């Protein structure tokens, strides 16, 4: 359904924009119909940028994104609406997603106006009630309220309902759980999983590995804008191959068992890497060598459905 091919995003930095900084570097993966992919990475790893590029909120420096075979960068302004009727996003902060001076319902009004201008009011209202029920909200409890009068969980479901009003095929869910409280976040997660079972494809962007594990079939691990490992969730989680992924997995606080090894890698100052393996400076592997410093390791498939970008697996 959605195919990312070597997409790259660079930003000009420095006083006169003389330097480029990679936010995303040659990232390729695809998402099939009805599939949930977790995009996992630390803050600043470029995961949100990828989501925004898919949503055409950020331009792509190079590479392409295809939606059902069409390169989305070629979509004309007039056809953009059509694209958005299939591809939508929900963001981290539900409060910031609502225009603070208007009531929360206004986001639905806009949808009505923009996508279904000819639909009669009654029909629309029915559709809306249906969408709200679908996300588990009682319309009477949530309509005609200002955003701050709703809870984060309610509002987040509200925003998902907004997307559901459309003929939705693909949803970018960017950290939509992280600002919710423990007792309600799982419900939103369940909702996404439920939608998925109805055929929706979801790019689930998160830094929380347990959430990713709960919901997705496949996971993409991102480090400094580069995919270091990707594949089926089980494989990634249980047999991580890349040293970074291994370190991540070892750092996950599990409820039922304690961390096994002590962390030695505390992370130093952030440095700019333009050449070689992005993880080189932190890589604990014995086998790292000059090659790692010089070349960017490509993703290689080490077992079916499990790719890793590490020199140690280059054969």
């Amino acid at each position, binding site marked *: 359904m959605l195919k990312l091919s070597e997409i790259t995003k660079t930003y000009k930095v420095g006083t006169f924009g003389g330097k480029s900084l990679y936010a995303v570097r040659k990232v390729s993966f695809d998402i099939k119909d009805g599939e949930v992919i977790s995009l996992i990475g*630390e*803050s600043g790893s470029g995961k949100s940028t990828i989501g925004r590029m898919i949503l055409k909120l950020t331009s792509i420096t190079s590479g392409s994104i295809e939606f059902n075979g069409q390169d989305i960068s070629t979509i004309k302004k007039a056809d953009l609406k059509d694209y958005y009727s299939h591809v939508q996003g929900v963001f981290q902060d539900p409060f910031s997603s609502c225009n603070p001076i208007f009531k929360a319902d206004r986001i639905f009004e806009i949808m009505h106006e923009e996508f279904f201008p000819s639909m009669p009011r009654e029909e629309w209202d029915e559709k809306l009630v249906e969408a709200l029920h679908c996300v588990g909200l009682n319309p009477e409890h949530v309509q005609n309220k200002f955003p701050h009068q709703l*809870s984060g969980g309610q509002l987040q479901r509200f925003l998902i309902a907004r997307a559901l009003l459309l003929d939705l095929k693909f949803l970018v869910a960017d950290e939509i759980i992280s600002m919710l*409280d*423990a*007792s*309600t*976040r*799982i*419900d939103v*997660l*369940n909702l996404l*999983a439920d939608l998925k079972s109805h055929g929706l494809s979801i790019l689930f962007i998160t*830094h929380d*590995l*347990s*959430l990713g*594990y*709960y*919901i997705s079939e496949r996971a993409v691990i991102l480090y400094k804008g580069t995919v270091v490992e990707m594949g089926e*969730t089980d494989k990634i*989680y249980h047999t991580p191959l890349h040293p970074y992924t291994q*370190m*991540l*997995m*070892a*750092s*996950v*606080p*599990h*409820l*039922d068992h*304690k*961390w096994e090894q*002590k*962390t030695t*890698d*505390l*992370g*130093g*100052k*952030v440095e700019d890497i333009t050449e070689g393996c992005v993880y080189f400076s932190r890589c604990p592997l014995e086998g790292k060598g000059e090659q790692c410093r010089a070349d960017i390791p490509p993703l290689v498939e080490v077992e079916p459905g499990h790719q890793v970008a590490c020199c140690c697996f280059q054969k």
Partner: protein
Amino acid sequence: MSLNIENLTVYYQTLKGEVHALEDASFSLTDGEIMGLAGESGCGKTTLGTSLILLNGRMRYIRGTVLLDGQELPIWDNRGMDEFRFKQVSLIPQYAMSAMNPTRRIGKMVHELIEARHEDYNEIMPELKRRLDLVELPQEVLKLYPIELSGGMKQRMVMVLSTLLNPSLLIADEITSALDVSTQKAVVEMLAEFRDRKFVKSMIVITHDISILSQVADSIMVMYAGQLSEKAPTETIIRHARHPYTKLLISSLPKVGIKYSEEILHGIPGKPPLLLDPPIGCRFRDRCPVAYEKCTQVPPFLELDKDHFVACWKEFEEHA
């Protein structure tokens, strides 16, 4: 007993009235205990933590006593608390990292802080250097500005600073929430190490992330809407929680190994009550699946098993 708290009640003053943020909290901490304090946002955990060191302008002490090493902390008296702060009880506040003055070199800041506590900077210097080494911070860090440090470095610096005078009690408020998982782990491990090295006698680690607590805490105390729900050794809370809220909370946590396709987790329906005019009795009553008439009275916080305190009528009934 390192820390002994009885009936501590602290309200917030707002224009609309008083927010009953902490109601009759009674619990204690043994020497060397790291207690995790968990709960949803607005449950009063930060109020509890900060009230032990500094009541801010809007906080009002209502009642209760706090004994630290057998000595009563005059927490209602801002001046009186001065001699305890930093020396007896220390706090790593939420967002401590961003609270550092960006225009001051770290060393200068430390200097001022030490002087403010009437201690000799030069006397403390060797110990400071030793501890910087311990947390793997180069000594040059004292010559840097906060902006030059990464998040993890700043967090470590704050930790060294707040424990420099070997306080009896350290309160760490959400110190990991803004960090990436790997840094998170390092910081949490450091907490345990500080305790092991006796830099601090006991700790209260406040966080909404129970899985972090499960790694480091000896005991976990769960709060709900300003009331204590349950306190028990970590293992007990995670595996044999008795309070319905704790049970539901633990069961709603996704963990690596649980997939939606295999096991569907559930959240807790409903919303926490507003603390401006809190419901009488058990405040979890409205969302509790096992609530009954008795719950309109406030349940006491009773020790049902050794070191296992619960505030739930239903549990009392079954236990009896």
